[in-house]
């Protein structure tokens, strides 16, 4: 108490909090991270990725307030978000463009790490955890793309899951596992949704923690002239200079995203129609090079192109710190590594360009792509149309074949049992459902209970039923038939 009644109670409070939590030393540990050679703009991409990931988490949580992951409702709910809900189109656009921003920042982060040779010097696990994060981000992009359940989403995912089907031995099984069956359907959507909002984000949180821990363990590598294990350049703490540079960059990203979302909202096409044979599926831009690459590997060779070559590239990429053991960091002294990296990048750009050329060079394709965009624009212009839910029970209930039951059904109506227990015993807020009551009690028990309800039933508003024996028999027969 003497601490709290201090003249400076605020200082007292913080001292108390720090004693209990160790917050101060934790904060110091985080902010005083030494950066050899001082803060630089080149180091912003890691924190920018973390920033955009948090933005995706926040917007994603909000979008989930209205989204329903079912083939029946997904498209309607996304249309509702985009067209009806206040700021819905804006938030969805921030989330959708945010996924592209994340891929771009990821490429920039990897490129910076690569060119600076920052993976060298006892940083193998740091690099590997980064590779895992790379894969997880691509998983997020792939699973999120299906969720709106429009034409684009449906067909791109149909192609994507077919590619997984090309993997030898386990391909067919893996494809069924991803789809939740042989075909794309509502189970596919549920699976992608669970992966997108639960499994993959949880993995990302865990691996980000590992990645940051390993980074702090190894220390910042500093400029390319430094020895990555023990840099000798004078250091500057992370706070304030690098924090400011990082914050300024984060601000820039969010401004760009907000402007894009405001002036060019992300669109939603018409609802997925699996019967549409004219639709030309095209993935999001970052998958276009792979999409084009697959065109060159027909039939029996396809698994070489689809699995073996990308697998080898991924393997060499991940094992980079194991293969390249020299401490040399200057890019111009590392022709093989930098050359291969540049080659792969140029190849991806080239594939993207060829995909664009083949789509726009063929008049048939070009016309179809324009028609698809026109359908999308038209759908976006139409006001939101609510889904019409037909009543569960038809207005005129069917007359049961058994005359006893038919008579019972009539008594059920006359006695206004439906007032509380719902039409055909489906239940309501005022009374429990009666369907399946035959499993819970015999006809005699039921008749006895109707004549003299239990205390609990009376408290709920159930009145004793005094019917002639015949009428009671029919009513019980009807109730047992539900």
């Amino acid at each position, binding site marked *: 108490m003497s601490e709290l009644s201090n003249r400076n109670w605020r200082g007292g409070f913080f001292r108390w909090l720090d004693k209990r939590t160790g917050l101060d030393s934790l904060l110091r540990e985080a902010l005083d991270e*030494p950066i*050899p050679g*001082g803060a630089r703009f080149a180091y912003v991409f890691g924190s920018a990725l973390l920033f955009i990931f948090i933005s995706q988490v*926040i917007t994603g949580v*909000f979008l989930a*307030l*209205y989204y329903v992951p079912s083939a029946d*409702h997904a498209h*309607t*709910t996304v*249309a*509702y978000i985009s067209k*009806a*809900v*206040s*700021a*819905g189109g*804006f*938030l969805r656009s921030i989330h959708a463009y945010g996924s592209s921003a994340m891929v771009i920042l990821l490429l920039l982060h990897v490129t910076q790490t690569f060119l600076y040779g920052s993976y060298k010097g006892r940083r193998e696990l740091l690099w590997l955890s980064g590779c895992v994060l790379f894969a997880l981000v691509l998983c997020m992009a792939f699973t999120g793309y299906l969720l709106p359940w429009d034409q684009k989403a449906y067909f791109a995912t149909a192609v994507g899951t077919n590619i997984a089907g090309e993997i030898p031995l386990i391909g067919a099984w893996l494809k069924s596992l991803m789809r939740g069956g042989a075909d794309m359907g509502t189970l596919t959507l549920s699976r992608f949704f669970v992966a997108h909002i639960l499994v993959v984000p949880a993995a990302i949180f865990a691996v980000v923690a590992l990645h940051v821990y390993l980074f702090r363990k190894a220390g910042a590598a500093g400029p390319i002239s430094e020895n990555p294990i023990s840099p000798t350049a*004078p*250091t*500057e*703490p992370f706070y*304030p*200079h690098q924090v*400011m540079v990082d*914050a*300024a960059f984060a*601000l820039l990203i*969010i*401004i760009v995203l*907000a402007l894009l979302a405001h002036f060019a909202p992300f669109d939603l096409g018409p609802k997925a129609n699996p019967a549409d044979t004219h639709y030309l599926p095209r993935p999001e831009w970052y998958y276009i090079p792979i999409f084009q690459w697959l065109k060159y590997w027909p039939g029996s060779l396809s698994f070489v192109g689809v699995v073996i070559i990308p697998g080898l590239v991924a393997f060499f990429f991940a094992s980079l710190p194991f293969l390249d053991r020299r401490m040399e960091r200057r890019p111009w002294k590392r022709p093989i590594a930098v050359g291969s990296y540049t080659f792969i990048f140029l190849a991806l750009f080239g594939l993207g360009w060829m995909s664009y050329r083949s789509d726009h060079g063929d008049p048939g394709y070009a016309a179809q792509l324009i028609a698809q965009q026109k359908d999308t624009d038209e759908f976006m212009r139409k006001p*939101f149309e*609510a*889904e*019409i*839910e*037909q*009543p569960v029970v038809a*207005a005129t209930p069917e007359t049961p074949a058994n005359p006893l039951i038919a008579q019972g059904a009539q008594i059920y109506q*006359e*006695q*206004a049992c*439906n*007032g*509380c227990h719902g039409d055909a015993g489906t239940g309501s807020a*005022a009374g429990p459902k009666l369907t399946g009551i035959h499993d819970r009690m015999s006809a005699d028990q039921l008749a006895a209970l109707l004549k003299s309800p239990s205390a609990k039933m009376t408290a709920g*508003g*159930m*009145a004793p039923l005094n019917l002639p024996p015949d009428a009671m028999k029919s009513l019980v027969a009807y109730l047992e038939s539900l």
Partner: protein
Amino acid sequence: MSPPELKRVAVAEPTRRSYLGWLLGLCTAGAGVALSVPLIRFLLYPLRARTTEVKWSDAGAVSDFASLTGPVQRSITVEQVDGWRKTVSDKIVYITKSSSGELEVLSAVCPHLGCSVQWRDSKHGFECPCHAASFRPDGSITGGPAPRAMDTLQTQIQNGRLMVRYQYFRQLVATKEVFG
């Protein structure tokens, strides 16, 4: 790892740094506030947009009820907007005349505990089959446990049709209160 360097940077430009820091802090706070506006609007949308609003339902041509001698039962189709969906359900109402002779529509939901009130020709009155609350043809109470008269529904006449706005009211209270 050299403290002297660290100190030099910190001392050399304290005013510029603190100014920049303040500016950036201000920008970040501003961006944070600006970004929370769409989030809050998004979150509160169902509270502001009356998504549960009930539309008017057609109860029949006004001329059908011109020579009404007693209440008639009508089943109306109620379309309710529930977020991104519309639900369509059938509800029972009674068309009757008020004590002043005007056309009025009564909800069949008993104000006591919500059973469906029935018209008994033999008694020339309404009776609830659950707890025997009874009402006159205009809906006023004659006996039983009901706390108030049968609930009248909002009506309007459009192109010679009697339109009804179906609503639920709280049970077991003496005054009519819209529920839900």
